[in-house]
């Protein structure tokens, strides 16, 4: 198992390095007029040249990339070109907000989707049909639309929640709960419907397998078959779906965070991309890649733990 994890970690690092190089070169090759963007439309040519020198844009691309890697290895991701704030600081204050929201949504999605999916698969009939229809409806309404509807009804009309985030250093845990509730619900609905659908088919597939018939013929109870055998075999499919959802959610939260004005990664990514604040964009990309690698690693480990066959292969 340790070798398995080490191998996965190694390939993760390679991916990280390749992505960082690709992103860096793609971004910085087209960074021609960044100095003028920073200085605004009244700046003179001398001012622009001065700024370019200040930002190190007059140095060769390769030199800058290696300097960036060397700094990044020591935890220094550079500083924003616009605000001079260290990128590592920006990420450190924003990742907790985004990750709290994503993890809260994922845990709820995992619980709800598994329950609904298993019930639909086991009971079939009308329950199954309701789940199927719900999945189509839930999947077809984008999270941000749900978000806007939730704000209008629950925050503005009923005043149950704040319309935009109230998270700040002087606010307590309650502000986090209130501010996160609507965004989490908005993320939840898509996730649960999609997840339940996948888990349902995975369970049904297992229930139709020969080993289930054999177990039944030996007089083993339905409950034991389901919990001891079927769910274990259906778990890899479910985990994969959930991990894909989590990774997809990193994109979805960008819009959700904008609507709810949550100080997470979304607004940072949007602002940095919009004004070509490349050091920050690099930071955001690295964060995303790391999350993807870690999630995949965790899923692989969980799968290996649930299903020994995976470890061997």
């Amino acid at each position, binding site marked *: 198992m340790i070798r398995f994890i080490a191998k996965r970690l190694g390939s993760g690092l390679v991916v990280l390095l390749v992505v960082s190089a690709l992103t860096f070169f793609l971004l910085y090759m*087209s960074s*021609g*007029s960044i100095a*003028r*963007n920073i*200085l*605004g*439309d*009244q*700046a*003179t040519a001398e*001012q622009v040249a*001065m*700024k370019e020198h*200040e930002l190190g844009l007059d140095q060769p691309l390769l030199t800058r990339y290696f300097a960036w890697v060397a700094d990044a290895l020591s935890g220094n991701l550079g500083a*924003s070109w616009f*605000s*001079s704030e260290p990128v590592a600081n*920006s990420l450190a*204050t924003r990742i907790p907000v985004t990750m709290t929201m994503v993890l809260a949504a994922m845990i*709820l999605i995992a619980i*709800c989707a598994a*329950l*609904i999916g298993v*019930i639909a698969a086991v*009971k079939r009939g009308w*329950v199954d049909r*309701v789940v199927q229809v719900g999945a189509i409806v839930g999947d077809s309404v984008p999270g941000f639309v749900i978000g*806007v509807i939730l*704000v*209008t009804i629950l*925050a*503005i009309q009923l*005043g*149950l*929640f*704040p*319309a*935009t*985030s*109230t*998270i*700040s*250093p*002087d606010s307590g845990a*309650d*502000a986090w*709960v*209130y501010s996160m*509730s609507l965004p989490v619900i908005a993320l*939840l609905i898509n996730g649960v419907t999609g997840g339940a659908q996948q888990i349902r088919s995975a369970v049904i597939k297992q229930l139709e397998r020969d080993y289930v018939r054999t177990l039944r013929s030996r007089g083993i109870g339905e409950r034991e078959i389901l919990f001891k055998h079927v769910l274990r075999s259906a778990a890899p499919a479910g985990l994969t779906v959930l991990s894909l959802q989590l990774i997809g959610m990193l994109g979805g939260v960008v819009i959700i965070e*904008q*609507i*709810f*004005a949550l*100080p997470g990664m979304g*607004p*940072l990514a*949007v602002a940095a991309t919009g*004004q070509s604040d490349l050091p920050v964009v690099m930071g955001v990309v690295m964060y995303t890649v790391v999350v993807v690698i870690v999630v995949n690693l965790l899923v692989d480990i969980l799968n290996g733990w649930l299903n020994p066959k995976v470890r061997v292969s």
Partner: protein
Amino acid sequence: MKFGPKAAAAALILSASLALTACGGTAAGGAAAGSTATSLTLGTIQDVRSWDPAQAHVGHILQPYQAVYDTLILREPDGKLSPMLATAWKYNAANTKLTVDLRSDVTFSDGATFDAAAAKANMDHFKKANGPQMAQLSAVKDVAVVDADTIDINLSTPDPALEYFLSQAAGLMGSPKALGTEGIKTEPVGSGPYVMDKAASVKDSQTVFTARKDYWNKDLQKFQKLTFKILTDLTARTNALVSGQVDATILDPKNGKQAEGAKMKLAANEVDWQGLLLLDRDGAKNPALQNVKVRQAINYAFDRKTILDQVMLGQGTPTSQPFGKASGAWTEELENYYSYDPAKAKQLLKEAGYETGVTLEIPSVPGFETQISVVQQQLADVGITLKVGAALTNTFTSDVAAQKYTTMYFSLFQGEPTVAVNQIISTKALYNPFKNATPELDAKIEAVRAGGADAGKLAQEVNKYVVEQAWFAPLFRVNQMYYHNAKVNVTPQIQQAVPSIYNYSPAK
């Protein structure tokens, strides 16, 4: 067991939603910011990049700086310049030296004293800090300390806008002890009415200020607590205002309707103009644009009132001139100089020898797609084809400077006469990339620069020239939709979409 699955499913969905909503009952109370009369919460579009006063900008990006930094000169809501840190100021006869008397009873929040040396240190810093408004002091040769509370600002060329600039970014005074340090980038040190509460502030989320004790001018300090809540998204700003999380914020005409439905008050103000910039007036890339009749024909092609009503819900005023109402360069006669007259447009094209049509190429501009398609339609009606190209990207300023566009649709700020001249008319202006000029126009511009207090009036001649020569095809001045609730009174500030910080007061 028949109801088993149904009950289970229902219970599941219910419990999930209840778990999340149950605790919501008391949330509204905690969420309402600005609920006491002495606190003010403003929804702003973006956070400041650096609190170094030399990095300050104009308009809505100036407002947060005003909370912590006093300016040498105070600009009243109607544009009148009044004493602030400067008690009096006077030009020499040649308009090349401005002597400024300063207050001697002001200290910065770090204890440093405001005096002539501090003022000089700030202006010297501003001149070399490479901030976005560095051009404001480009005419300043040097600053000399005359005595403890007097400075001489020596100019290399007269600049009628200098006094105005001293009420803007260039006039912000930071503590000389903090200038140039790393600390001032994240924590401002000024002499202004408020001081930053760093512990309660989060970059790009909210900035909190508290009233400074013993501030020298209590008339400008109307709240005990001031919070800027950064809400980049328009929907978020609307929701925050309507639900009472912020007391005031800027919206657009469409979202404004929603705010009006919730009984929010509008403090509207015309700040920008929108329309076509006919940049290639010498016909370097598009020969048709060299002909003044073609440019005039373009101007006659637009039914400005209808476009304004349809696209901006009528929020603004149709106009044919690029200079703003408060600039002094604005004249009544130029307002409707080009009335809607498609027949005349066609006639002019014919006279110009372009009976068979003219083709203009413009870039698409994110956020202005509707305007551009309406413009395209109305130009087509008189025989002008508008080819809309790729969208402006964040490299557009360099693209404009590199003469990539012969024509473009844009929204531009209407400032003081020399500011507008430097932005769109002079050969150094970014929005005159083909460097169009005539001796006649140069003379008029020169007169404005040397005009001192008469600059506005003299700029009327520049305005008249560019309107008659159809350098642009302005469509309308646009209303900035600034909304606030009943807890605060707000006075709009001329030439600013967002009022100065002094223009807010608790409603009695």
